[in-house]
């Protein structure tokens, strides 16, 4: 690759170091200057994690060819304060708890710095608008806005620097449990110092790339890697043929090979992997792998997957059923026949992506005693170690899993995905190997939240008591089982809600299709099934002329209640939380029924102003100070 004579002023120091002509400014900062505080989240200018200042202007460094930055003055998150110190804004992020996983935070700090440089008196609405190009998946943004407001007030002299320090209560607490101790990981996150797996390097490290299926269902007719293997710079190519042990992983059913075995079952499934001395060579080698596929009939709809004659994905499941969970209590048919009101409705929820800002990444290497070590943001190293020991045929204590700081997980890093390929590649090449997903690769190939379709029937008395709930939930599990069984179980147990219902019939069913696999995702099936019950209750409340909080109160499980799985509970706090939101929101009681236009509880202190794009920018001017005061 062509070399470029590159020089710039980076964080106040003159830098002269050649760059690859294909590099983006982001690559140059991270790979050549080791400034890994600047993160790659999407590579497309959408998430803002890679924000830096170029000649004083906030830029997304993933969109800027390095040649464009030649001679420029560049400022990264590492340069915002003197070494070992934090800027006012970074201290404010620490103080308000504005960082969670921390991966988006350096970019967020850069954007917020730009906002306050533009207007030292920016109000909360303007701050929101100026941070609009930066995505955070953890915090809900509220504490980030708090941090920027705090830094603004300290910066413009409205508050003293003391406002950035730990509160006195934290220091003088009788008990550290229950006190708002500031996050101990925050300084390393707001400064960009924390190393995530993709920031880690070891000498002699190879770069891995993965060949993925271009079709949803096919038989692998030919997979010839010899030409790729022979390329200069390529150190190793692996396929399922290299797996020394018993291949197969999953949470409950081990139905997924670490790379496709004879068949591919979804678009994006891993087929082969290449490790080379640099990323570009690894990418080029993928194109030299000879792959011939014979397409098979595929099924994309969960109902169609259950129909007789549907294409079968796994020999162990001829009916395409991953898991069926029943919950039975009382006599639902009798209760529905006796109910004063029976309401029936269908609901659907969509697949969604975890969209953690840190794409999957890992670094693996052999230790002197032959131990295979894999560092990755895995949410379940205990289970992954068990599976890898079998797949790679290593004694369990020769597999060492280290959980690197997780740049957002939400369940998406709980199912094992790529750790098997990394480990196998290290065993084959005997060299350290690193693998970092692109955003597109992450979206294409990793698990999603289960999309569901649910039919719900509820029978109630005239005074609002639920006599029976019947629910049938069908979930698309995609091509491999992953966490589907557990998701179906949690969806079923919690489906009918925290209500005392004498008669319950719940069925949840997860099926295989040739779609992207569904897996663990924060709220794990309960989000889908409780959405149904809570929507349904409002429909019933309207028909019965009952206030929605009231109908929930009438049916609420109380202390000592027996659940739908016939478990006797201790104390139940449902009435307390209902009362709390009724009070905090100033809820005006009344049956649901398009009361919006006449209700008096709208637009109160807990509601923000509606947003009109662009309307919040104000000219910095003489009257700013008066407005703030």
């Amino acid at each position, binding site marked *: 690759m062509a070399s470029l004579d590159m020089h710039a002023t980076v964080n106040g120091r003159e830098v002269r170091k050649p760059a690859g002509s294909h590099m983006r400014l982001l690559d140059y900062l991270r790979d050549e200057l080791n400034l890994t505080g600047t993160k790659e989240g999407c590579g497309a200018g959408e998430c803002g994690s890679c924000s830096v200042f170029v000649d004083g202007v906030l830029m997304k460094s993933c969109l800027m060819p390095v040649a464009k930055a030649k001679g420029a003055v560049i400022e990264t998150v590492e340069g915002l304060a003197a070494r070992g110190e934090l800027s006012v804004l970074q201290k404010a992020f620490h103080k308000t708890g504005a960082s969670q996983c921390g991966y988006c935070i350096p970019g967020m700090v850069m954007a917020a710095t730009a906002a306050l440089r533009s207007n030292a008196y920016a109000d909360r609405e303007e701050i929101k608008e100026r941070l609009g190009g930066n995505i955070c*998946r953890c915090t809900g943004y509220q504490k980030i806005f708090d941090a920027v407001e705090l830094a603004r007030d300290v910066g413009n002299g409205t508050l003293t620097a003391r406002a950035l320090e730990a509160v006195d209560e934290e220091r003088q607490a009788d008990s550290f449990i229950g006190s708002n101790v500031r996050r101990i990981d925050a300084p390393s996150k707001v400064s960009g110092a924390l190393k995530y797996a993709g920031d880690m390097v070891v000498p002699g490290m190879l770069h891995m790339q993965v060949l993925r299926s271009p079709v949803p269902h096919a038989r692998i007719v030919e997979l010839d890697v010899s030409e790729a293997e022979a390329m200069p710079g390529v150190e190793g190519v692996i396929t399922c043929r290299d797996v020394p042990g018993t291949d197969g992983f999953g949470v409950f059913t081990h139905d997924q090979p670490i790379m496709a075995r004879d068949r591919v079952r979804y678009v994006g499934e891993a087929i082969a992997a290449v490790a080379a001395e640099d990323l570009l060579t690894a990418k080029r080698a993928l194109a030299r792998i000879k792959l011939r596929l014979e397409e098979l009939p595929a099924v994309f709809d969960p109902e169609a997957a259950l129909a007789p004659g549907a294409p079968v994905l796994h020999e162990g499941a001829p009916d395409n059923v991953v898991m069926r969970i029943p919950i039975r209590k009382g006599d639902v048919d009798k209760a529905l026949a006796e109910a004063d009101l029976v309401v029936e409705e269908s609901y659907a929820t969509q697949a969604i992506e975890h969209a953690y800002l840190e794409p999957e990444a890992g670094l693996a290497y052999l230790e002197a005693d032959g131990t295979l070590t894999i560092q990755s943001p895995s949410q379940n190293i205990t289970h992954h170690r068990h599976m890898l020991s079998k797949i790679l045929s290593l004694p369990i204590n020769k597999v060492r899993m280290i959980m690197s700081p997780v740049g957002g997980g939400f369940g998406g890093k709980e199912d094992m995905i790529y750790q098997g390929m990394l480990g196998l590649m290290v065993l084959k090449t005997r060299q350290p190997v690193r693998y970092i997903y692109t955003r597109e690769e992450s979206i294409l190939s990793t698990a999603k939240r289960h999309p569901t379709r649910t039919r719900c029937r509820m029978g109630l008395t005239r005074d609002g008591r639920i006599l029976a709930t019947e629910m049938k939930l069908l979930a698309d599990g995609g091509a491999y089982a992953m966490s589907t069984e557990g998701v179906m179980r949690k969806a079923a147990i919690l489906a009918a809600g925290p209500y005392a219902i004498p008669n319950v019939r719940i069925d949840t069913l997860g099926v295989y299709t040739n779609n992207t696999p569904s897996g663990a995702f924060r709220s794990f099936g309960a989000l889908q099934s409780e959405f149904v019950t809570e929507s349904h209750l409002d429909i019933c409340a309207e028909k019965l002329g009952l206030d929605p909080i009231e109908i929930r109160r009438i049916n609420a499980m109380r202390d000592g209640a027996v659940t739908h799985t016939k478990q006797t509970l201790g104390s139940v706090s449902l009435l307390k939380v209902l009362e709390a939101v009724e009070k905090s929101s100033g809820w005006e009681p009344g049956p649901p029924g398009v009361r919006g236009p006449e209700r008096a509880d709208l637009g109160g202190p807990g509601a923000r102003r509606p947003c009109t794009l662009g309307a919040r920018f104000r000219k910095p001017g003489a009257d700013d100070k008066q407005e703030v005061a």
Partner: protein
Amino acid sequence: MSAKKRGRGVAAAWYGIARTATIDRAGAWAELDDGGTAKILTGVTEIGEGILTVLAQVAAEELGVRPEDVTIGDNDTARSPEAAHAGATRQTYMIANAVALACRDARTRLDAEMADHWGVDAECIRAHGGEIWAEGHNMRLSMDEAVHICKARGVVPVGSGSFTADHTGLDPEDGSGRPWQAYVYGAQVAEVEVDTATGEVQVLGIWAAHDVGRAVNPAGVEGQIEGGIVQALGQALMEDYKLADGYTSTQGFAKYILPTSLDVPQVTSTIIEDPDPLSPLGCKGIGEPAMVPTVPAVMNAIYDAIGVRITSLPATPEKVLAALQDKRRRDGEAAPGMAAE
């Protein structure tokens, strides 16, 4: 007449803490170290929820040191005891309790030596914030000195802890069983504005109340509630991983739309503390339950605003507009010139 209509909706939720319908366990090791500091080893790493801070607070409280004196070892299957996985709203419940038990074990060793050193009963030894004293006696030292004395007597104050959540599987026929020992409950009210010209829904406010058991770090709990709500908002209004014949058309963040700072509501959180009686600390959890009531609360609020019930997520502008047109058609047929509802 304004095209923008407001409304409110409410929803409740419940959730089980830690692994479902199977026994759950976590282990930890603790050591009171030189200088009155502390080492905690357990299989945990931050996934963003603030668990390291929570564990530092718990260890500080149980050992009698300060949170900043606590060092927490990395999650490493070759170096730390098993604490299983980082999910299922189990980190605070399972691991903080394991850490508390390990710290109590270490303190038993230290307290026995100090009681002997001072000639008092071990039961009267207290420690907090880096100081250790004998209640009812005129004895007080820094934790630094106490650890020094303990070691000079030939004892390293170490401890271990294992915490179990005693869950059972479900009956395969009727689902009966005890899937969790701790449950949490939550409720949220949503206020929305719907633009009937564009179909766009803005969530202006969420009032949330969640029982988390004993809250170790209330600001951290709030952070989980705020973050959970915004993720749920994405599911409710905009996020959609689209597939056609197995191929996605939402392959990057330009196509896969996520909530940004301009989309988020103001969130007012109320933390309800109903302590868990079955565990040493009484805390439960918040990570997952935080996002469960949001989606139905928003759908119920949309109905309140415009009389349209969205039963298929997400409530995109296109879907809301189509539903409004349907409703106008239906209302027009049912009762010309006025809304049927």
